[in-house]
């Protein structure tokens, strides 16, 4: 065996171990996060009722009431609005990019849509306060216009890059033969898109939508600026309410560390984490279903 061989093998082994340790480290990090945030959050239940936290909408820590239902509903509501508005638009963009756009348009538009992701949340929030809230005030006829609709609209724009790029990838990774087979049967382009391509790419598109929802439900700064931050059930889509994230930032800085109130905020963060995890499991089921087919 030539002399240098031992070094080559050594490098091969070492590098492999390094890669494995990196992978393990990544897992440890998420476990740590779950552990720390979870422990901190769950300790609120030493003084607060678990049932109330999930079923009551009365959030009034001064008087010992810790009902987080409003925030959960707010988070889910804004996310749904965002996905209802941004999902179809983003999907249209993805289909456009994958199937319709001339190459030169695609070449410009694809990286350009990524720029949406580079605009800081604060800027989205600012456009929200100055433009969107006025619009929602008018259409919901409410006093301020702050609320779920405004937040949903802002989020709809913020999730566009996620929806567009992941859905386009899913459409693009379809075998070319699907499209050819359909067109060769005399289908129009739209029939091909609607009946073959989108259904075939649906696991990928579903993944895109779920990840976009994860992004929307976790967004903080922009939502906090337009949601109105009132800890109560909204009367309409245009009246102030709160989401998990907005309430965390609103109150985190002004509650004593270790107090039940503060722990309650960590519990909300933990809840967010759990929701995110559930979404990931949904994504995996979606893509596994795709793989079986």
């Amino acid at each position, binding site marked *: 065996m030539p002399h240098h061989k031992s070094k080559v093998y050594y490098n091969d082994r070492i590098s492999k171990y390094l890669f494995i340790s990196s992978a393990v480290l990544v897992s440890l990090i998420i476990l740590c996060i779950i552990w720390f945030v979870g422990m901190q959050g769950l300790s609120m239940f030493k003084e607060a009722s678990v049932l109330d936290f999930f079923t009551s909408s009365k959030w009034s820590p001064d008087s010992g009431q810790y009902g987080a239902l409003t925030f959960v509903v707010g988070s889910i509501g804004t996310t749904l609005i965002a996905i209802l508005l941004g999902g179809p638009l983003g999907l249209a963009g993805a289909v456009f990019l994958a199937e319709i756009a001339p*190459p030169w348009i695609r070449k410009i538009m694809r990286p350009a849509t990524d720029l949406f992701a580079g605009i800081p949340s604060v800027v989205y929030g600012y456009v929200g306060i100055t433009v969107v809230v006025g619009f929602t005030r008018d259409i919901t006829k409410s006093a301020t216009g702050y609320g779920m609709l405004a937040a949903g609209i802002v989020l709809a724009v913020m999730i566009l890059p996620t929806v567009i790029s992941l859905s386009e990838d899913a459409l693009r990774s379809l*075998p070319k*033969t*699907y*499209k*050819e*087979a*359909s*067109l*060769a*049967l*005399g*289908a*129009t382009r739209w*029939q091909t898109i609607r*009946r*073959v391509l989108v*259904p*075939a790419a649906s696991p990928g598109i579903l993944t895109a939508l779920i990840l976009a929802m994860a992004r929307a439900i976790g967004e903080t700064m922009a939502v906090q600026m337009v949601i109105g931050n009132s800890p109560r059930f909204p009367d309409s889509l245009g009246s102030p309410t709160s989401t998990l994230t907005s309430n965390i930032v609103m109150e985190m800085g002004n509650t004593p560390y270790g107090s039940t109130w503060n722990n309650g905020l960590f519990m909300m963060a933990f809840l967010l984490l759990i929701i995110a995890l559930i979404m990931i499991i949904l994504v995996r089921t979606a893509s596994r279903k795709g793989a079986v*087919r």
Partner: protein
Amino acid sequence: MDKIVVNNLDLFYGEQQALNNISLTMKEKSVTALIGPSGCGKSTFLRTLNRMQDLTPGVKIIGQVKIDGQDIYDADTDVVLLRKKVGMVFQHPNPFPKSVFENVAYGPRIHGETDKRKLSEIVESSLKDAALWNEVKDRLHESALGLSGGQQQRLCIARLLAVGPEILLMDEPTSALDPISTMKIEELIAELKDKYTIIIVTHNMHQASRVSDRTAFFLSGDLIEEDVTSILFTRPAKKKTEDYISGRFG
């Protein structure tokens, strides 16, 4: 009767010429085989006949392709109708990721058939025509991707027959299949030729001689020779054809 008439067809991929001045006539209700070594332009030629080539960016086509006397490259040709009439089977079976039934019903559906009973009838008769009915009748609603390669290819043929084409283009339809499946498809072609005009690309000369009435030999974008199959394989007019069929290259 002449079904397809090709006159002086040139095709360019960008700068590169892939077909040189091809002229060829194909008769109704007959099987024409296209043979030639890899890269000679067989697939390219086939895809000009239903304008699938339009999908390739940067393709330029000069010349005339007449089907039933009508130039399909005329500005007012309805490509969708053309493709309905000129169906295509691909080298690799490409069923949609849907059920067997939905695969076959796809064509009729997009062409406006909504009646359930009618659809069922079409699906059944198409599958029967494609000699697949007996094998799949109990699993019509399972995914087509669970079928074997040979079954998938026949499913693709059934899917095609369901839209009622007049011409079938087949690009090496058996090259990815096992011997038994190949045999079945060859038998199928023999049956179908009573109703359809068939053009088949194959790299298997035995197959060409088994299934076709006439054979055309392509080489580097040129049509070298076209003749009745038995003549072309036994007494080719050109030296190049002879070299190829005797296995001296390719």
